[in-house]
């Protein structure tokens, strides 16, 4: 099979995911009570496209399922099937099943024989129950169309013999044409062989349609989009009747009806463009440093043009970065299915409310957000939302609500997952923490500190481990994943009212807000997202702890004190009076205090990978080029903290062989 065919196949599977999302959103809207013909039409078009493409590319598991699904949606569209809640819920489950089949087709995974049989049967059964002889159709889509000018088209449709076998259904084409205007159908049965000689699935009939419509030829051709290679098709405009009063509108080219608003581009090409934009940003920073008053005095014209060039460059960089941005909808659209499944598993009635799904975020961030969000929703459904009986007893509606929202605030994206459940039982959290020796019995922790215990590795308040959650492997992984993306996670909870998890993420990973630091004669960049505070002077809060080395008292807790010049083996001496301690958050919820010679300032930097050309260096996340052309390493505070801890352990083993390893005795 040619590469081209494989590429088209891959593109089709990508499109299928979009169609599945359309199905999910339209069916969910219908289920929420928005009964509109346009929604049904959108859902029908989505499944029709899946079926057509699947037939063309030979996806044998997709075609029959999509065909059965399409028939049901067509029944709804034409008023032969009445919409009911049960039907829509089944249709949503069928969408989940179809999504699984498509994903399996894409990955080459083997699905069990009969995987989809039950879903097809359930859908067909419920559709049969909802079938009606005289169900009123929803507001017909064709009424939405402008009818200012009408044309009559003569359409000749002669299917090739194999058209039906490839799951193409002329009845659906007729339905689509009917939706476009007044249709007259004339069948030609002259090619029909004697009954005993015919092959039941060969196509023998052909048709001539006469369609009076305000729609364009391109829209008519659209009804035949999946059969064009499988038939002889002729479309001729017979006459054009204008509304008497209306002035002749300018003739639009036919192609304009079908102009695509998006194009597909390989991510590799986009990444190359983003890299180039990064290079331009660096050059821009270099040029900016050269522009000064003397240049203006010497050549004001050049100064002005350069300033203009820099503005354009900045705009270009912003636009290129925006190409990588994707609506977070791609992740959010997966959650209704998850909540439906959780609702079934936990036997709780749970509703998902989604807001801000059009918020855009960097593609890489987007791709890695799915798991953390799913973890939090699982937790909400399993631990947060109470059983129906408990909710009624607490004076709450029987149905629990999980809300998932996203919004952009400045250069960051805020994602919130909240529920109206029982909230965090902080006494239980404390009991578990004491039992595990994480805190002492007399420890006085703030509410925030107690909530943060939930992010400790392996910590769980669940009494029983379920298939959904309770193993305590969720929250710390969530925090670690979000921190890897340059983000933060926090938790708010009110007893009896519910909990909210707030994730704060950078808009992009290619550009980062960083603090430029100097240690010795080298410059370093520390991501702003991880910095909690800077201290100078800091010496009065510092102390020495056996086994842990130098520590800094930060509001009552002790953070390891790390001299950056020692981390990278520089033979420089830090002046204690001039140096600054930067308190930095590390993965797992801890803190370190990094001592540097000077804080130079804050700057947006372009992140460059060093692992492409060099081996990974512990404590270094990447590199960037500063405005003066010098390369600065971007620090990984968590790794630096780990380096310190392993050094301390060695120190402890050497000097305190009998000592209690790792225990803080300050």
């Amino acid at each position: 099979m040619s590469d081209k065919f494989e590429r088209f196949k891959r593109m089709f599977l990508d499109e299928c995911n979009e169609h599945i999302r359309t199905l999910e959103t339209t069916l969910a809207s219908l289920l929420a009570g928005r009964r509109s013909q346009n929604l049904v039409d959108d859902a029908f078009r989505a499944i029709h496209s899946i079926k057509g493409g699947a037939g063309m590319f030979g996806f044998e598991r997709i075609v029959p399922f999509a065909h059965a699904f399409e028939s049901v949606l067509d029944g709804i569209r034409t008023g032969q099937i009445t919409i009911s809640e049960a039907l829509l819920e089944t249709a949503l489950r069928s969408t989940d099943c179809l999504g699984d089949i498509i994903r399996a087709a894409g990955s080459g995974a083997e699905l069990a024989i009969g995987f989809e049989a039950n879903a097809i049967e359930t859908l067909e059964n419920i559709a049969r129950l909802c079938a009606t002889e005289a169900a009123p159709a929803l507001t017909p889509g064709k009424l939405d169309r402008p009818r200012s000018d009408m044309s009559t088209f003569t359409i000749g449709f002669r299917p090739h013999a194999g058209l039906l076998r490839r799951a193409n259904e002329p009845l659906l084409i007729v339905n689509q044409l009917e939706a476009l205007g007044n249709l007259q159908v004339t069948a030609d049965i002259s090619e029909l062989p004697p009954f005993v000689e015919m092959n039941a699935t060969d196509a023998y009939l052909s048709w001539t349609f006469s369609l009076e419509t305000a729609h364009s030829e391109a829209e008519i051709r659209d009804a035949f989009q999946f059969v064009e290679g499988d038939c002889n098709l002729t479309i001729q405009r017979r006459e054009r009747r204008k509304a008497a009063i209306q002035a002749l509108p300018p003739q639009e080219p036919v192609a304009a009806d079908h102009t695509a608003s998006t194009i597909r581009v390989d991510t590799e090409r986009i990444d190359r463009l983003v890299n180039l934009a990064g290079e331009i940003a660096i050059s821009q920073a270099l040029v900016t440093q050269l522009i000064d008053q003397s240049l203006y005095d010497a050549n004001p014209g050049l100064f002005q043009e350069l300033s203009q060039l820099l503005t354009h460059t900045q705009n270009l960089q912003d636009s290129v970065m925006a190409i990588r941005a994707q609506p977070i909808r791609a992740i959010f659209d997966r959650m209704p299915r998850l909540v439906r499944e959780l609702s079934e598993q936990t036997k709780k009635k749970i509703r998902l409310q989604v807001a801000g799904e059009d918020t855009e975020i960097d593609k890489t961030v987007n791709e890695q957000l799915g798991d953390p969000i799913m973890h939090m929703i699982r937790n909400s459904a399993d631990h947060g939302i109470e059983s129906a009986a408990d909710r009624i007893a607490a004076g709450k509606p029987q149905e629990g609500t999980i809300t998932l929202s996203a919004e952009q605030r400045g250069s960051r994206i805020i994602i919130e997952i909240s529920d109206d459940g029982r909230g965090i039982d902080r006494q239980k959290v404390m009991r578990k923490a004491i039992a595990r020796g994480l805190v002492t019995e007399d420890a006085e922790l703030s509410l925030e500190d107690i909530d943060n215990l939930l992010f400790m590795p392996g910590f769980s308040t669940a009494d029983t481990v379920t298939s959904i959650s309770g193993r305590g492997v969720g929250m710390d992984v969530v925090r670690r994943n979000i921190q890897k993306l340059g983000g933060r996670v926090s938790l708010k909870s009110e007893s009896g009212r519910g909990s909210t998890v707030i994730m704060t993420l950078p808009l992009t990973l290619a550009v980062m807000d960083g603090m430029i630091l100097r240690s010795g004669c080298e410059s370093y960049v520390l991501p702003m997202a991880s910095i909690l505070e800077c201290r100078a002077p800091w010496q009065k809060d510092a102390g020495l702890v056996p086994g842990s080395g130098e520590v800094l008292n930060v509001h009552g807790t002790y953070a390891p004190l790390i001299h950056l010049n020692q981390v990278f083996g520089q033979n420089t001496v830090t002046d204690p009076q001039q140096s600054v301690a930067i308190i930095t958050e590390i993965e797992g919820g801890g803190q370190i205090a990094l001592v540097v010679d000077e804080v130079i300032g804050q700057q947006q930097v372009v992140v460059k990978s060093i692992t492409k050309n060099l081996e990974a260096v512990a404590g270094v996340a990447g590199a960037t080029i500063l405005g003066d052309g010098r390369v600065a390493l971007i620090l990984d505070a968590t790794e630096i903290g780990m380096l310190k801890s392993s050094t301390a352990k060695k120190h402890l083993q050497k000097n305190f062989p009998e000592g209690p390893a790792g225990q803080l005795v300050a």
Partner: protein
Amino acid sequence: MPVQENRVERLSLSLNPILDLRSAGPLKDILQQGLGRGVPLQINASAVTQMSTACVQVLTAFFIEIRTTGSPLSLSGSSTSFDSAFLKLGLAHVLQSVRSPASTPESSP
């Protein structure tokens, strides 16, 4: 799709609710059993909720064939879905010919 042969030498066929593409082959097979028996055939399509063009074709060819052989055929009942499929495909006259055995289905111009 049960075919019943009763004592007065008449065959009755009740069509299945779903007559989709997959049903076209089995439908043809069962209709073929009714051909050349020289007995009246009665078809009931009142349970049909889903029709495909393939099944419409099979039934159209069957109706033409059976009229050619002169065997009596009647349609004892039909659902809206069944009638609608023939109507949408421009074959209402074929169905009409079964309902009014005097007329013969003809090729459309």
